[in-house]
């Protein structure tokens, strides 16, 4: 029994152990050899990725139903581990340039990834909370990693305070769910509802509060206010990881909890989700236009993308659409993560040692100075906008299709309109890069280049053969 328990969590456990070991090992690695730490971290992530892939096709529950292993978790975990690898690839050269190449960075990243992975597998609300804290705490530290720069410290502190605040709502929501159903297990909630022992209003209140707690993590409006400040202040490599990883984990938990535990609340929650999605798309895209700082702009863009994914989630209450909604959201997360790493990679490459070089005007002349980098950035901007031939487009089409088929025409219209709006600020970057004169200075090491090139290549290439990806995400079913 115990063996099976461990098997369900094997990659996470191994990654945790590896991170702890790395923390100690790093103490014996001199400062000028931190490449070793980065390499070991990547090795650990790769090992966990291998173990995760070995879990393909296996299902089961572990630790007395606290965690579950299903195709959905395997896919989300793989995505998280790949995100971790990309983040490590972006980080090393960047940290060295900013003179903050401390070894704890990698351990913290690994801890955070492990927490996120636990989140995707959580079959009990307590584990959801545990995992949330497990991946958030390292992120708070990472956000403040450029210590003693005030921006970064401020980002870390704000993120921590607001994170704690919203985690309070989450735990309160869990308590209410427990009060309503006498259980915290997702499966138990359903049973309680089915047998009629549950108090539905209390359950709805609990679900609403859980939505708040997780909505904070994925930066949904109106729980998004921390995002621009934190994304701007945190070291760019951290932001890249945070933007992708936290979003994947947050949405994974949202999907699992709502699809598995609260299908009965669909009617009540749908208007709320609808409003959240609409507000998020609207505000994220609109405010992004006003930004002149590229990090803030991308922060609002990330808020807007959370809105698009929420749009798919709105359809969760419809039993016919449920699986498609999950698939579409996963697909979009994949597309978003790839593009996200590329775009933040470009931002990191252009960031100066003193933390400057982040204004939009600093990108002027990039098209002439480093054509490849500018071309890559163009691909990412196009993908964010949803223009062919990029993965972003396919993802959006998929999302819109689900939304329309679920009957939320109005929401889809808002989505389309706001993505039209988004073209304005994304393409502005392209315009500035190619049509203005300037002397931008890009510095990257080989891994950094590789991450950007890989993201760009995948963003384009995968969009050409989306069928395989479709079948991949549509196979990612949620199981108890």
């Amino acid at each position, binding site marked *: 029994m115990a063996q099976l328990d461990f098997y369900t969590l094997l990659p996470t456990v191994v990654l945790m152990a590896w991170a702890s070991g790395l*923390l100690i090992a790093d*103490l014996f690695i001199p400062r000028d050899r931190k490449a070793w730490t980065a390499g070991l971290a990547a090795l650990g992530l790769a090992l966990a990725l291998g173990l995760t892939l070995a879990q393909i096709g296996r299902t089961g529950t572990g630790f007395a139903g606290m965690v579950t292993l299903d195709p959905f978790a395997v896919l989300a975990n793989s995505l998280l581990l790949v995100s971790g690898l990309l983040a490590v690839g972006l980080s090393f050269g960047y940290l060295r340039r900013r003179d903050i190449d401390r070894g704890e960075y990698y351990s913290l990243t690994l801890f955070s990834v492990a927490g996120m992975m636990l989140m995707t597998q959580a079959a009990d609300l307590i584990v959801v909370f545990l995992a949330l804290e497990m991946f958030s705490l390292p992120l708070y530290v990472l956000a403040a990693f450029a210590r003693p720069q005030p921006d970064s410290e401020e980002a870390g502190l704000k993120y921590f305070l607001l994170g704690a605040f919203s985690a309070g709502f989450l735990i309160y929501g869990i308590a209410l769910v427990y009060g309503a159903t006498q259980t915290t297990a997702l499966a138990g909630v359903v049973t309680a509802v089915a047998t009629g022992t549950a108090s539905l209003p209390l359950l709805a209140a609990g679900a609403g509060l859980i939505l708040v707690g997780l909505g904070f993590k994925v930066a949904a409006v109106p729980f998004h206010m921390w995002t621009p400040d934190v994304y701007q202040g945190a070291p760019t490599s951290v932001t890249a990881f945070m933007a992708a990883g936290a979003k994947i984990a947050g949405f994974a938990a949202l999907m699992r909890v709502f699809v598995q535990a609260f299908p009965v609340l669909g009617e009540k929650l749908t208007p709320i989700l609808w409003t959240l999605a609409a507000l998020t798309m609207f505000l994220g895209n609109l405010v992004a236009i006003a930004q002149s700082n590229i990090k803030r702009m991308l922060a609002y863009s990330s808020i807007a993308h959370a809105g698009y994914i929420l749009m798919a989630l709105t359809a969760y209450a419809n039993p016919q659409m449920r699986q498609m909604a999950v698939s579409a959201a996963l697909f979009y997360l994949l597309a978003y993560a790839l593009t996200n790493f590329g775009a933040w990679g470009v931002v990191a490459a252009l960031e100066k040692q003193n933390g400057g070089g982040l204004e939009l005007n600093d990108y002027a002349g990039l098209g002439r100075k480093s054509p490849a980098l500018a071309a890559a950035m163009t691909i990412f901007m196009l993908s964010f906008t949803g223009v062919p031939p990029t993965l972003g487009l396919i993802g959006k089409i998929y999302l819109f299709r689900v939304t329309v088929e679920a009957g939320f025409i109005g929401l889809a219209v808002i989505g389309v309109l706001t993505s039209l709006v988004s073209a304005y600020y994304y393409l502005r970057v392209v315009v500035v890069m190619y049509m203005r004169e300037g002397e931008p200075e890009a510095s990257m090491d080989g891994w950094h280049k590789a991450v950007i090139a890989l993201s760009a290549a995948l963003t384009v290439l995968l969009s050409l053969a989306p069928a395989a990806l479709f079948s991949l995400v549509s196979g990612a079913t949620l199981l108890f």
Partner: protein
Amino acid sequence: MQTEWLYIGLFLVLGMVMPAMALMISWLVAPKKPNPIKQSTYECGVETVGEAWVQFKAEYYIFALAFLIFDVETVFLFPWALALDKLPLFAVVEGIVFILILLAGLVYLWRKGELEWA
């Protein structure tokens, strides 16, 4: 059901009343002869200097945290050690893992030089 809530309510009230009463009684009964030494803040017998609203060195916290970890550790380890011969292998291994994790924390502190008071 209702009686249960009643009990809880009673406990709540009692819990609040008891300490309040203790404070009240001492306030009522105690003689009041103040002098500066009596009114000064008690801080382990050392005379206070300046205000209490000062910035602390972060080392205090780290030290306190390290202390707390090893202090709490014993709470977990004591029952484990007592029942060691009756425990299944799994629990034994879990205990060892727990100790190892704590040890890793200690090694980390030591290598980072946090154990040296500066």
